């Protein structure tokens, strides 16, 4: 039995994560400004596409307002939750040997990463509240809101679960640094691919049917795309429940993979620079 209760260790790490996130509030502001430009670009692009087809045009089941809301809400979510940072940090710590210091601590590394990321997401969500409110107000004539209470609830839960999936995928990608020494190229290749698979570039329905069926099974589609589907009211209660089940499945599966990778990886770890 350790000397300090476990929950106090969690609290300590989380508070470190919070002050860490707050220390970079300046770059958060810059992040808002720079993320606005691609958002505006997507909104204008889609408006132009729908304009050419007439007001009643529906693309892959999306009306214009649904499409615009897809990008607006996604952008707000991305403002708060950037757990993908984990894959860069884990890789870097494994490669540089900075992991040595952390291994000496009586606390699981992956759990520590989780605490840090969740703290950052919490702070990010708070900081994103005001810009999100402004964005929703400016876009109030086009924004689609969930029609019923269960949709709000399911959206909130699926967003939280989606963040866990993102985190676990990032951890797995990051831990692959145990096997591949030179991973920066790999990460740069994987990251845009993850963006597409998660539906961050466009709603996944836009791809041809068979491909869509495959993409819909992969974990990435449950990070961003699925919560947005729930938000836009494009799934029934039954489908939402199934989706949440799939999210739970992926969380369990990825947590298992991450744990396995962590154990196997540590055996290979050479503690460079230690």
């Amino acid at each position: 039995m350790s000397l300090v209760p476990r929950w106090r260790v969690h609290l300590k790490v989380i508070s470190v994560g919070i002050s860490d996130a707050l220390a970079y509030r300046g770059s958060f502001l810059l992040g808002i400004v720079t993320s606005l430009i691609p958002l505006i670009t997507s909104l204008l692009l889609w408006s132009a596409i729908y304009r050419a087809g007439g007001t009643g045009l529906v693309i892959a089941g999306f009306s214009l307002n649904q499409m615009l809301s897809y990008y607006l809400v996604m952008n707000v979510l991305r403002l708060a939750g950037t757990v993908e940072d984990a894959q860069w940090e884990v890789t870097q710590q494994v490669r540089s040997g900075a992991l040595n210091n952390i291994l000496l601590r009586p606390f699981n590394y992956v759990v520590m990463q989780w605490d840090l990321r969740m703290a950052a997401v919490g702070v990010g969500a708070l900081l994103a509240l005001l810009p999100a409110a402004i964005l929703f107000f400016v876009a109030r004539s086009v924004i689609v809101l969930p029609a019923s209470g269960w949709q709000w609830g399911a959206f909130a839960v699926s967003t939280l679960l989606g963040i866990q999936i993102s985190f676990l995928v990032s951890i797995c990608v990051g831990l692959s640094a145990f096997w591949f020494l030179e991973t920066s190229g790999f990460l740069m290749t994987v990251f845009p691919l993850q963006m597409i698979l998660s539906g961050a570039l466009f709603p996944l329905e836009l791809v041809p049917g068979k491909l869509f069926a495959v993409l819909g099974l992969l974990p990435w589609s449950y990070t961003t795309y699925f919560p947005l589907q729930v938000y836009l009211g494009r799934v029934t209660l039954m489908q939402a429940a199934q989706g949440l089940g799939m999210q739970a499945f992926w969380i369990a599966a990825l947590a298992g993979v991450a744990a396995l990778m962590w154990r196997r990886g540590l055996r290979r770890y050479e503690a460079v620079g230690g």
Partner: protein
Amino acid sequence: MMRILSIWAGLVKNCLVREMMFRANFAVILLTTSWWFVMNVLMFQVIFGHVNEIAGWSKYEVFFLVGAGHTIMGIFETFFIMNLTRVPDMIRTGEMDFYLLKPVNTQFLVSARYADFEAVPNTLLGFAFMGWCVIKLRAAFSLPALASFIVFVLNGVALYYAIMFISVTLSFWFMRFHAMSVWWQLTGLGRQPAEIFPPKLKFVLTYCIPMLVIINFPVKAYLGRLPLAAGLWGLGLTAALLFFSSWFFRFALRRYRSASS
């Protein structure tokens, strides 16, 4: 002018020799850096699975535009970006001294000392892709169209350079300056078909924040859709900003304190 060009050729050769020592990287670099380009093409491919045109642009015209944006930024990255990002540090550490001492135009040396070959495979890919688009467009190939395209590609690179150079020159006053990343984000607007923008915004992007001049103009020139007046504006603006950047740099140098030397 000839002297500057020959020095530039020498500098580029010098960088190429250094780069070739790490030759194995070349293929990896192409694979890793062309992803955003591939993603962009893929996105439009998906959209064109549902519509026939975007604001009057057909699929291969939009692809052509994506290729042009990629190529123009690739040329800029190859010759300038590495140098310009170093300028704030050069001012802070006093490294600028070495550049001032050389018997050649300081702005030139500061802007073009290092060439970055990471963007070269990408730029070539951009050219090949544009060639493929032109074939797919079945547009009659004409030398004047190609010539005006090349003129406006170079004009775009020069204009973007002038804007970026003026921005980094501001770091003589403001040490921590994020202008470059904001400008880079803004080029995202220039990569879109100009007609998607509401008229007012299109006006701003042509005459105030001229992102459309940089990337849209070359493609429009090739397709014969660039009004003469707009073309002249684009060329004139570049010339004016290049002159201004040169004056502004010399003005800013008077503030240079040669710190820590």
